[in-house]
């Protein structure tokens, strides 16, 4: 009797599961408005590679900085009945989309996103610790004394965090002054925006040594600042530049022995792989309780790159 019941159960579950398993592999939609950003690109590519290895069907949707469109596209994939959604955007801005997914019972995973009750979980680097790494590097290099220019970006929480921590560290160091905290214009890309802003700062502070360091919340503005400093012929003043994210361009600049001295490498593929792993276990029916999963990041200097 018990055997019969078990056999029945197996049959039913086979009927239910098998067709879906055989006909379509799990479908996952990845939504981001920032695919043009190198970090996001790395992460999404790593995710696609890892998910495709598992035989999943992955769709990547980029809305080119348009959040409203992202919500619309999210509604579309919900309606289409994907098995899971991965977002790389501030969850508070897409509450309508998250609600649609929740109503349809589709889990949403944050990939370097943010914390939200409607997210199954979020995998990210610890922004606080990354900013602390580069800010303390600057403080150490200046021996706790000098004028620092900051490049920040408030609208995006993960980056905003970095600025807050770095600011706290600089303010906590008695002899360090923050000359300016600049949000670069995105009109022609943050690199160009930061470059223009830095040129203005250099013009306003013509004395050699009046600028000791540039701290950037990510690599693009650090590269822009580097260009401005080199073009102004002030590369030999020993201005220390640091960024975060360790993009290819940043690595080259650091390896080349320029003023750009350090950056932090987020483990983007690590984040992506963790998301894949979490989705897999969720699909297998496991409960995910942890709100955030942190993947550690490492400081990258010329010495680290010399070995590569």
């Amino acid at each position: 009797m018990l055997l019969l019941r078990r056999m029945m159960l197996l049959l039913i579950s086979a009927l239910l599961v098998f067709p879906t398993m055989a006909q379509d592999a799990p479908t996952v939609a990845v939504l981001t408005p920032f695919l043009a950003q190198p970090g996001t690109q790395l992460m999404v590519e790593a995710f696609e590679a890892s998910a495709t290895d598992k035989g999943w069907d992955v769709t990547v949707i980029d809305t080119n900085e348009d959040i409203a469109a992202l919500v619309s596209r999210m509604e579309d994939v919900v309606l289409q009945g994907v098995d899971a959604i991965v977002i790389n955007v501030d969850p508070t801005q897409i509450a309508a989309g998250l609600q649609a997914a929740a109503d349809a019972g589709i889990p949403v995973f944050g990939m370097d996103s943010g914390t939200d009750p409607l997210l199954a979980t979020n995998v990210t680097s610890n922004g606080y610790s990354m900013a602390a790494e580069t800010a303390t590097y600057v403080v150490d290099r200046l021996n706790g004394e000098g004028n620092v220019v900051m490049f920040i970006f408030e609208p995006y929480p993960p980056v905003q965090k970095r600025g807050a921590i770095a600011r706290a560290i600089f303010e906590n160091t008695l002899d360090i002054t923050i000359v300016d905290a600049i949000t670069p214009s995105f009109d022609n890309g943050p690199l160009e925006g930061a470059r223009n802003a830095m040129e203005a700062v250099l013009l306003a502070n013509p004395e050699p040594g009046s600028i000791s360091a540039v701290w950037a919340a990510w690599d693009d503005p650090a590269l822009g600042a580097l260009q401005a400093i080199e073009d102004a012929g002030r590369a030999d003043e020993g201005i220390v530049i640091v960024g975060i994210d360790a993009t290819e361009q940043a690595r080259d600049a650091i390896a080349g022995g320029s003023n750009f001295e350090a950056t932090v490498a987020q483990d983007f593929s690590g984040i992506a792989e963790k998301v894949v792993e979490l989705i897999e276990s969720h699909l297998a029916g496991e409960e995910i309780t942890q709100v955030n999963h942190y993947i550690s990041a490492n400081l990258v200097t010329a010495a680290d790159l010399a070995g590569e």
Partner: protein
Amino acid sequence: MTTQQSSSNKFKHRQLSVGGLMRRYGTLIGFLLVVAIFWWQKPQTFMTIPNWVNITRQVSILGVVAFAMTVVMVTGDFDLSVGSMASLAGIIAGLLFQQEQSLLVAVIAALMVGLVGGLINGILVSYIGISAFVATLGMLTVFRGLALYMSGGASIYGRAIPETFSNFGRGGFELGTLNEQRVFLPNLTILAAIIFIVVLILLGQTVLGRRLYAIGGNMEAARLGGVRVNPLRLLTFVFSGVGASIAGLMLFSRLSTAHPTQGEGLMLKAIAAVFLGMTMTEEGEPHVLGTLLGVLILGVLANGLTQLRIDTYIQEISTGVIIVLAVALSSLSHKQINILKPIQQFFRNSGSQAEARQLND
């Protein structure tokens, strides 16, 4: 030598042929074709009530901007500042929410943004005589800068925003249940429909609308025929400004977030929608019904292509190709869709347009 040709017969036939139909109704046929393809490819999800409800909500904000833009374009002008005006309206409302002002105060203040912004645009264009292209391009930058400055570049979201406000953008009017799922007619769709009807009546059934079309048809003849051209042109900009503000509030409500640049994509899409609509009218003049179809085309394309899981960049390319194709097809039918009119006015002293068509013998 004798020249024997039978081109007149050919010409006559072509008027009634498939080609002729394509040119006149090409955009509509194309739209139906696109719908048919999506339906065939996604039989389970595309042609369903929830999906169409979805589409109407997704296009509602763009619709409001495009309907208001139609009014401006009827007189032959443009308003490039609608997108940044929408962002600014959202930011103003958000800041007032943060200062714990009431919902009513915030909404009225946001609407005032469009009213005042539209007034400035209108005065610049109709009284000072700057071309609409230049004036609204300049104001676009001003509004954008204001929105960034006032918000400090940061998004406004979180607990300060009243629940009634964010619920409006997500809620709707319950239509009933379908497959055990409740189906709502979204509030945003209802709001857009109301504005559509207002514009439809305004342009088609009122003296004001008739006068606006007269201005667009021949400004000098309208003026000499007793139409108060300047105040009416100004009014169209106020209309598009208020429309933009409403759209900005809708966007804010839908996202529960006011970002200083979140409305910027609206302007180009709204103009594209109006142009798509213009391809379907006899003389190539803007008509709000056409605009509605234009808005739906853009919405359906985005929705359907996403469902077909076509790369988003390919989506952009195909949307652009469809717009150009539609306008090209209809210009083959010798409609005068004068996309460059405001630009031409910029280069030319206005008023000296000698209509030089040779239609009478």
